[in-house]
């Protein structure tokens, strides 16, 4: 009778969650490349489309909202105001949606080979970021035309806004992506959230409308919404320097931003925990 030394053994299929990304970074890079490369297969203009579409969208805002309707609600450079909010929401919606679908889309792999499954939602968020970049470039070009100059606080605001969106869409994406494997209803809930996202943040209107319309506690809640925080950070970084300054930053811009970041971390932890619980059954439920 020999007693076996089990220290060299491991239980297959147990990873370290999102921390595994560092050991698997090469695969992550390939997954991201796969996600971005296959988007414009067999298209002549390829990535140019990624610039043409947001440029077109911005042009429509500028002409229709600004010139035809004169719909600016007292907001200077309303087209820029709109667009800087919309790119944030687009990033969120695409990252969140892709991450939710990522497990099902990679079902063949999940069923056959073990790898840390967190890689799929993470790759989905990075792919969404890659698609966000051309929109940001168009926005930046528009801002520069309208007299935008860089500032340290502006750049920090933009960076923090991006971190908030990335963390939020990853946390929610892991949560709903994991549930989606067993219960396809999750996808519909995600679509509802995506529909709501544009309206739940000051994209089409300014934060002052909300302040004047709802009780204080609801307004505080509204401002702590990570989407609101990220959109306001983008307004502060992109739109505000081009405006006449008549619409001030919301009170406690940075405090709200850090509260929002805290909320995102909570979502990340919950997302990861639920993901791990459901992950054990991915291969058989798919």
């Amino acid at each position, binding site marked *: 009778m020999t007693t076996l030394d089990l220290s060299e053994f491991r239980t297959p299929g147990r990873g370290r969650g999102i921390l595994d990304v560092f050991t698997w970074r*090469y695969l992550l890079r390939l997954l991201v490349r796969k996600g971005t490369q296959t988007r414009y297969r067999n298209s002549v203009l390829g990535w140019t489309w990624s610039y043409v579409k947001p440029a077109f969208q911005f042009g429509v805002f500028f002409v229709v909202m600004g010139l035809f309707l004169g719909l600016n609600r007292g907001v200077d450079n309303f087209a820029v105001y709109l667009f800087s909010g919309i790119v944030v929401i687009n990033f969120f919606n695409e990252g969140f949606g892709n991450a939710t679908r990522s497990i099902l889309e990679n079902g063949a792999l999940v069923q056959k080979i073990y*790898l840390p499954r967190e890689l799929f939602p993470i790759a989905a968020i990075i792919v969404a970021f890659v698609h966000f970049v051309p929109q940001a470039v168009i926005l930046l070009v528009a801002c520069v035309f309208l007299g935008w100059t860089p500032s340290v606080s502006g750049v920090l605001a933009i960076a923090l806004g991006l971190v908030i969106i990335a963390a939020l869409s990853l946390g929610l994406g892991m949560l709903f992506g994991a549930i989606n494997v067993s*219960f396809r209803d999750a996808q519909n809930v995600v679509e509802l959230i995506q529909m709501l996202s544009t309206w739940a943040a000051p994209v089409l209107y300014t934060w002052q409308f909300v302040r004047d319309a709802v009780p204080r506690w609801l307004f505080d809640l509204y401002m702590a919404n990570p989407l609101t925080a990220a959109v306001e950070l983008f307004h502060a970084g992109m739109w505000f320097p081009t405006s006449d300054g008549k619409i001030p930053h919301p009170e406690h811009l940075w405090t709200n931003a850090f509260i929002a970041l805290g909320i995102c971390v909570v979502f990340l932890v919950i997302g990861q925990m639920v993901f791990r619980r459901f992950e054990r059954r991915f291969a058989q439920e798919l």
Partner: protein
Amino acid sequence: MSQETTSSMPSDTAVQARPSIIVEHVSKQFLLRRAHAFKEAFVGWVRGKDVSSEKFLALDDVSFTIHEGESVALLGFNGSGKSTMLKLISGVMEPDRGSVLVRGRLAGLIEVGAGFHPDLTGRENVYLNAAILGMQKDEIDARYDDIIAFSEVERFIDQEVKHYSSGMFMRLAFSVAIHCELDILLVDEVLSVGDAPFQAKCRAKIEELSREGKTMVIVSHDQDMVRQVCDRGIVIRQGKQVYDGPIEPAIDAMMA
């Protein structure tokens, strides 16, 4: 890793061959009907009859230990639970009862080209697949030429794999897997697609890997190939392990 396992083995083999896969009292259950929507699950729950209650025991108390350098065939008829067993070993699924422990790097080749993306070229797929099996870029670079040479598809390597024939597809997939840095190789029914010369080459390669001390678990319905490559067979019938021993009697036991 809560389990404390003790295992007895003949003292003479204990010196050269240490276990690399330990499967202990493993059972795996599947649900025959699943509720894919909250409503179904909820309605079932309200009515007091669990809609997902029909259970099916795909593996029932299976135990074996596979030592370093062994090539073992998992034998059994369709639906007996062989692929399920490989999935438990590779970590794709978790057992409901019992435990699976492995030692060393593991590469699972469960079905042809699971990680292949039809819109990518052969070359891109080689990199993607090797990375999926756990390799880093420099490791793949170092082996790239060997992988292509073994698969014999270099002429088509920059073509998208959706235009490959199924044999070419499988050649590339198999070639990637056996060139991985690995200690344990799990092969599920993939060799049957290749033509005769390539099958011979694969067998030779598997024997070579086995001599190098790699551990292999092979699922195949091709008895000639199993006879040639494996020394030991484990027979599973309807989820129960019915035989574990030398390959010839194992094949007889399966057919019995």
